[in-house]
């Protein structure tokens, strides 16, 4: 049994017109100690999908399918049980640490409250544990930091405090949504190193959401590329990014400034990303796809295995290797860049 099993999840909003589909038949598994990445443009459904692990479904939306966390379905869980699970089994960190930190409460109050509630620790024991957490995320002078307020810290330190808060009750799964996007590369490198260390030392699993494919490449084991609420492609992260099979993944990689496409203009993806309000029929990516054929405009492509643990949802599969041996054609010169 996997730690997180999302099975054929569909989330839709009833509107006066046609229902808006935010997530459409997504299945995803995360094992203990595994780092799983969700990539895609804004509106692809990656955050909505990940939030279901905490039992969050957008207001007014209905979810079908199953989301099993440690064997329990969070979609049908009682409110009381959800409160227990959040923070202890699964926790979340956001892009802006001030989303999770209260500006007017001291760091101590914010870090110890959950320990006293969830773990029934005494004030003294909770404080000791909070200091331990701040040491873990490498905040200098932790006992002094406890009496400080969020505005006393830099953005990178606030993010580390938010992570300390999320990890205080030792969740088995951390949802990290664009946690390093607002940070400088130097600070980002520190946070990524920290997550890797926590995975190694605590066996914590992480669902990592980012649109930065370089970060994705060095951080996650397994990658789900999402477009318009569906999984376009899935596989080992480095293999998928080095040899994308879906035209969308390929387009994302080509739009990225990286060492290997220097001297050429970046290749932008034509058109605008599909939104739940305006989702094209058939393969939702077809209006932006250079390889689209007639059936792409009418038939939704199925996610099918292509070998080496990878799956792909594309009728055309233009990047399939000619000899059928490997699972993808490596992008020129990208290896070892």
């Amino acid at each position, binding site marked *: 049994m996997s730690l997180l099993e999302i099975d054929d999840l569909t989330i839709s909003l009833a509107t006066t017109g046609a229902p808006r589909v935010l997530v459409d038949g997504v299945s995803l598994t995360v094992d203990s100690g595994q780092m799983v990445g969700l990539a895609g*443009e*804004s509106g692809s459904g990656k955050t909505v999908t990940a939030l279901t692990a905490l039992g969050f479904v957008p207001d007014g939306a209905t979810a079908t399918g199953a989301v099993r966390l440690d064997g329990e379905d969070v979609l049908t869980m009682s409110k009381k049980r959800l409160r227990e699970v959040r923070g202890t089994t699964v926790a979340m960190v956001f892009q802006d640490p001030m989303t999770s930190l209260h500006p007017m409460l001291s760091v101590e109050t914010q870090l110890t409250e959950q320990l006293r509630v969830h773990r029934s620790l005494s004030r003294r024991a909770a404080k000791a544990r909070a200091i331990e957490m701040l040491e873990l995320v490498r905040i*200098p002078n932790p006992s002094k930091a406890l009496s400080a307020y969020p505005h006393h810290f*830099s*953005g*990178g*330190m606030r993010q580390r405090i938010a992570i300390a808060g999320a990890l205080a009750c030792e969740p088995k799964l951390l949802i990290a949504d664009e946690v390093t996007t607002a940070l*400088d*590369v*130097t*600070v*980002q*490198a*520190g946070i*990524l*190193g920290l997550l*890797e260390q926590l995975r190694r030392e605590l066996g914590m699993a992480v669902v990592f959401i980012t*649109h*930065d*494919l*370089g*970060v994705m*490449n*060095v*951080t996650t084991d397994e990658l789900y590329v999402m477009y318009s609420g569906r999984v376009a492609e899935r596989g080992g992260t*480095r*293999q998928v*990014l*080095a040899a994308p099979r879906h035209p969308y993944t390929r*387009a*994302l*990689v080509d*739009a*990225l*400034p*990286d*060492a*290997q*496409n*220097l001297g050429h*203009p*970046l*290749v*932008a*993806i034509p058109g*605008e*990303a599909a939104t739940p309000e305006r989702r094209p029929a058939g393969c939702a990516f077809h209006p932006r796809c250079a390889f689209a054929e007639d059936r792409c405009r009418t038939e939704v492509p199925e996610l099918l295995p292509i070998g080496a643990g990878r799956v792909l949802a594309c009728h055309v599969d233009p990047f399939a290797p000619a000899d059928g041996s490997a699972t993808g054609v490596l992008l020129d010169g*990208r*290896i*070892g*860049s």
Partner: protein
Amino acid sequence: MTVLDVKDVVVDYKVSGRPTVHAVAGVSLQVGAGEIVGLVGESGCGKSSLGKAIVGLEKLASGSVTLDGHPVASLGRGARPVRDRGLQMIFQDPYSSLNPRRRIWRQIADGLPSEGDGSPVATAGRSARRAAVNELLDAVGLPAAAGDRYPHEFSGGQRQRIAIARALAARPSVIVADEPVSALDASTRAQVSNLIVQIARERGMGVLFISHDLSGVRHMADRVAVMYLGRIVETSPTEPLWSEPLHPYSDALVKAIPKLGLDAAAPVAPRGEVPDPASPPAGCRFHPRCPLAFDRCRTDDPALVAVEGARSAACWLQPAGGPARELALLEA
């Protein structure tokens, strides 16, 4: 040919009861016609303060900024002198830099030289101005009909194109662009980045491209200046900065970038934190975090000196006029 010349610029922030912060502590740099110069560094290093000071949005505590040989005046309450309009700025947030209540074409037309300015190249008359706006919209890849619409009708990338068109209306010789693509989606970012490069090349316009996105800068810039705690620590043609950084701070930045590739190395974080700019370390400002620091670095502040290969560095390991020394060899 140098069009923008920044010399020994100092920008101070004063708060009563607190020590003065030298956000920019003596910076010189040049931008040539048609040249794209990247300015990189971590948040708080003073790169945005420098950008604002160059266009006159921050007062210079000392130093000078000249455009085409003329000193640029700080912006007061009055209109900007016509002569300084050759220097334009694009900001990060295209949502706050456009007026939500005015039609696009009128906002772009604001930048056109007019007779009232006493400009020798004035565009007079409504239809001529509208035609000039249409040309600018075309130059940034928007249809003429866009001019009749309001900012909220556009996406982030389109708004940034509009902001670029408005800057171009003044026929600038240099544009200071402060994180112009950072708020955009990856794909839109590629489009707007390409547009800026294309415009700079076609119009022979200089661009000072301020960004924390090192990979993006590497893709666009001809030359790069690296800033740390109010100082420029290295300037270099773009490619050698990545392949062989001369300053240990540049090296730390390059090593922190997460890369694509099957065998990409994990990014490395430099040790320590950026110190408080109100009390920068003595000697070289980077020495507490520098793996190669020695005694002299703790007491003497190195000046930015020319090294071979059209490069410069402010590091005691890189002697003036000498051959560039490879940091990797020094570490070994």
